[in-house]
């Protein structure tokens, strides 16, 4: 059924993945900028992974957009129309990649000491802060674009709400937190010194608590979105919401997004935030954090596909 849907939909799996990676890319730079503003240099690893994951995810967003396109070789024409949300998105992707790459040069990996000698400016903090501020704005634009592009298409009443932008934005930040958390948890497992282990546990804890809040907000926004659409004056919007909540997409939405992508990781994160640093749980912190992260990432991708498909389903039928 899903294969059929994705084949018939004008915007299918490729666009869903582009929106997912776009949100994660923008979100990663937001997380890096906020972490730096709050914690300074204490959690430099979070800044590094924010930059690397941000670059990778933004590039993947562009790649999936191009894979979807019928004529990817005409990429440069995409910047032609300022009234088009795709032009806005293409500009955001390019700007984030460009500025993000400069930002990443301030944060070379410790495992490549020779790289630092090529990047002597990486020791300076003030210019880096400037790029963090810029990337917070651009990252917000990119994460927000993944919602705007649907909300402003105008022909699908199911997407025509600011809640879709809020949902995609919070999900973008949430997936970014967990993508960074996944890397930090994986690195925690290979730390040898007690001090560095403690630091990595502390970073995991911060990400864990932050994502707990984000998942709660995301859950609230998602439920509000479904509720408002089920009661929308538009017949088409109601049909889409019914397909999502009770129809063909319901198993994927409730099972894949709400249960797997929100409830399970939320429970895990609450458990870890509460008991994770105790002697009984400390060994399980990293593996459980990785599990929660994988759930959040899978749920984020599923949510994008569900919302895209639900908006277009009444048309396909």
């Amino acid at each position: 059924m899903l294969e059929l849907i994705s084949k018939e939909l004008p915007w299918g799996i490729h666009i869903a993945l582009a929106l997912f990676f776009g949100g994660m890319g923008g979100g990663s730079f937001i997380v890096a900028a906020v972490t730096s503003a709050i914690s300074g240099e204490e959690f430099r690893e979070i800044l590094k992974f924010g930059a690397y994951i941000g670059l990778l995810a933004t590039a993947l967003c562009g790649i999936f957009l191009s894979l979807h396109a019928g004529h990817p070789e005409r990429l440069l024409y995409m910047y032609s129309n300022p009234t088009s949300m795709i032009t806005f998105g293409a500009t955001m992707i390019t700007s984030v990649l460009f500025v993000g790459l400069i930002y990443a040069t301030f944060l070379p990996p410790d495992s490549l000491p020779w790289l630092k000698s090529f990047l002597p400016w990486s020791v300076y903090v003030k210019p880096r802060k400037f790029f963090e501020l810029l990337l917070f704005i651009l990252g917000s634009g990119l994460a927000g674009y993944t919602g705007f592009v649907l909300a402003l298409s105008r022909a699908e009443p199911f997407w025509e709400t600011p809640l879709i932008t809020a949902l995609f934005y919070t999900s973008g930040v949430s997936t970014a937190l967990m993508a960074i958390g996944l890397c930090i948890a994986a690195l925690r497992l290979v730390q040898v010194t007690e001090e560095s282990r403690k630091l990595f546990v502390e970073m995991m804890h911060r990400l864990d608590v932050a994502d707990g809040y984000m998942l709660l907000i995301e859950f609230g926004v998602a439920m509000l979105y479904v509720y408002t659409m089920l009661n929308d004056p538009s017949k088409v919007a109601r049909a889409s919401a019914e397909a999502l909540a009770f129809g063909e997409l319901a198993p994927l939405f409730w099972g894949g997004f709400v249960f797997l992508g929100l409830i399970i990781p939320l429970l895990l994160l609450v458990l870890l935030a509460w008991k994770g640093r105790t002697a009984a749980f400390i060994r399980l912190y990293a593996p459980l954090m990785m599990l929660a992260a994988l759930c959040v990432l899978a749920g984020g991708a599923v949510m994008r596909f569900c919302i895209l498909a639900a908006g277009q389903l009444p048309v396909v039928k």
Partner: protein
Amino acid sequence: MEADQHYSILFDNTKCIGCNSCVVACRLWNGREGLAKLPVRVSARGEASETVGPVLLEGEVGPKSPPSAPKIDKHHLMVIEPHPEFKGCAVFQRRSCMHCVDPPCMYVCPTRAIYQVNGVNLTDFTKCFGCQYCVVACPYRARAFYEEKGIPIKCWMCLDRIGQGLAPACVSVCPTGALDFGRRADIVAKARKRAGELRATGKEAYVWGDGEKHGTNVIFVSDVPFEKIGGFPEPEMLVTAPEALPELLVQRGGLALFGGAALIFLGFILWRRARIVKAKIKEVPRR
């Protein structure tokens, strides 16, 4: 060109018998796959340059038999659909590009590939990126995506025929006069007159697309309300004017975006405050 002088088609469903002559004529004129004559680009004077076709790729075959229920796709730029709710007394619905006076597809296209010539909305296939934003944004669902060529296709009002002084293929073969062609001002007047005649006989009559705001260059006359026929957008779906976009962006997206950002900041600040307070409590020596 003033909208009144746009090329325009009238479709009167009170005269349509669903014979599908127009669908066949469209296929015959525009080629087996609806694209053979579709121009790659049309000049401002309405002259067509090279065509997209021939469309059958090497080793590819056309449809073995005509589909029983044609839908807008690479084989059909226009179709006539009997609406399932009106089986007893069939109500036929023309489905094709409505050639909106203020077309949403034109404003959402990131490559500016969509343009208007004499009110006919056309696509420059040398610029089209194939992102399908126009397919998603079309309130009438009048575009089909031709996968093999990577382009969205639709009715182009047979501009080549119009250039030769002929009516579009669909109009030229209609046996009942359900289809008519002319300048928009004349077609709108005809549609309103027809609606008046129907009302005079005690029937209901509705006209679609005759307004100045959200008007179309394909005008419909119907004795059944359009919302019952289906395929017509709800009023709130007809709002893609370029001047509305910045406002929408600020009002809808912008609010949500910065609201979201503010929430994140608030969350982090509260969390940090809680942490500092906790640390201070620990610092106070126990008595």
